[in-house]
């Protein structure tokens, strides 16, 4: 049976990441862990650089290499992990 009342969604004070839109979360993740840089994003255009960076990340983390922001890749981006970058110094 459907629930009686629609679920209220509250923004809790001090809650950080969980409400970021997917694309912004992806861009932050790819830059933070060295898969792309801000300049690359500017030069190549958002979509192209994202695709390239996603492919690099998917290969590095053993995900299916689609170059797309698919569900498995988003799940990986939300997974708890080490803060050391995967690429670069």
């Amino acid at each position, binding site marked *: 049976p459907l629930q009686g009342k629609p679920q209220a969604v*509250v923004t809790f004070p001090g809650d*950080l990441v969980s409400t970021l839109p997917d694309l912004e979360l992806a861009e932050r993740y790819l830059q933070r862990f060295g898969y792309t840089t801000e300049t690359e994003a500017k030069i190549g255009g958002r979509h192209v650089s994202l695709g390239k960076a996603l492919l690099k990340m998917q290969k590095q983390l053993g995900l299916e290499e689609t170059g797309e922001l698919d569900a498995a890749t988003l799940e990986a981006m939300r997974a708890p992990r080490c*803060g050391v970058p995967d690429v670069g*110094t």
Partner: protein
Amino acid sequence: FLTFEGDLKWDHMDLTYRVINYSPDLDRAVIDDAFRRAFQVWSDVTPLTFMQIHSGEADIMIMFGSQEHGDGYPFDGKDGLLAHAFPPGQGIQGDAHFDDDEFWTLGTGLVVKTRHGNANGAECHFPFIFEGRSYSRCTTEGRKDGLPWCATTANYDQDKKYGFCPSELLYTNDGNSDGAPCVFPFVFEGNSYDTCTTDGRSDGYRWCATTSSFDQDKKYGFCPNRDTAVIGGNSQGDPCVFPFTFLGQSYSACTSQGRQDGKLWCATTNNYDTDKKWGFCPDRGYSIFLVAAHEFGHALGLDHSSVREALMYPMYSYIQDFELHPDDVQGIQYLYGRGSGPKPTAPAPAPTEESQPMPTEEPQPVPTQEPQPAPTEESQPMPTEAGSTSTTEEEEEETPEPTAGPIPVDPSRDACTEKNFDAITEINGELYFFKDGNYWTHSSFWKSGIQGAFSVSDTWPGLPDTIDAVFQDVLTKRVFFFAGRQFWVFSGKSVLGPRGIEKLGIGKEAGRISGALQRGRGKVLLFSGESYWRLDVKVQRVDKGYPRATDDVFTGIPLDARHVFLYQGKYHFCRGSFYWRMTPRYQVDRVGYIKYDILQCP
């Protein structure tokens, strides 16, 4: 594996480490022990030694902190980033930092180590029975002094074993009061406080005065977390207050109402609607041992690996009986050479490594390990692309593969018409299906479909017609066959056996072996009935502490599986015409038909 650019490594083997501060989530003895074991992961396979020091500059300085904690690489609240570390070198190089907005445990939930009482510092046992009631938290019931306590066995009424839970009324950490408990109320900047506070601090740690006036005496300590302390939110460390009001409704337990991510939270005052004070409720948390072992790998010079099962893989996953992956071993030995092998250790008690009985109250210095003679440098393989198997060094000499392909005995005998099979396993990347002295192969790689039926006795002479289980040792490529309580070991066509499985150390309770899972590092799990043993293939003996109950680790799969095998990196449990597929994270990710999904019969 990957190392940092320029193969950054320490120029000496006898390293020191120092724990600068401690998370209030765990008793400091538990944290010290976890860090000691995390370093031992690496010292077991290299000449490296690690000594804990308690003052001055150590090679590896370890600290807990939240958000921006002084190095320009801020953490991010609960979940997300868990920790980070710097490659070997001076100053901050070689240091490891842990995000104290995480809930630190040993990976399976709250760890409440008791003090005093009569249980020698044992952990609380939840739930426990006291005066006929069940408690899944520490309680002040039965006491007038308000000190929370718990039983350290399931039944206090029967066993009378107990200890006191962490609380600011019992002790404080660090500060300048030698562990003295808080005094409430106390005065700070003219205000009166009757609970711990973060006022006056920017790092979010809760503290209290240990006299009635901090303004006058300047005596203070940090408050340990109670068992009901929340994580993150905006009142980290404060206990839940039940009942609390949220959107006009009363809640007497943690809830995920109001959230889309399903995480449980509670208010830390009795009215969230007016006070807006909240935090996440304790969950399984993150194993400080596993995360520390990973970060210490960085501190020794290893970068992230793309091998999913490796310790140096960047994402966290909880593993119950942890073992260092060959990829990690090759990486650290590329930098520091081999050690002289694992140190002889006293026989461990039966429970899992994680629940080792805690050391005595005072943290023990890491036992001084005799400096190992430096191994002569063997020519080390150069690291290539992460995960490239070309860096893998076979430890055992290769056993010859059967070279000439077998000739089908009866090509018309169709595997798809067989009602069921005796055994299924993967050999050299192909799946083998055994039945009544015949076998078929199926390679998803070569797309050649099902090949056979071939004669078992042609390929492996001397075997009986009915086989219960088969597995191939990943390192030596030898193939082990089981039938009843007998087993055979084939290297190519040469065979050793039959021998009784009691020679492996498997008791009479195992009538037949139903399957095997290769676990890497020379270990294979052998399943029988509802239990499994861990076989050390090199010494052909099962490890101490086995058998264990299958459903302790492998949940959600049939306990009476007829076949258990590893295929394409995932565990397969078969019963009847179905199979359950489980990921290395012990999650069943697929249930399907053996014939249609695995054999791909039409």
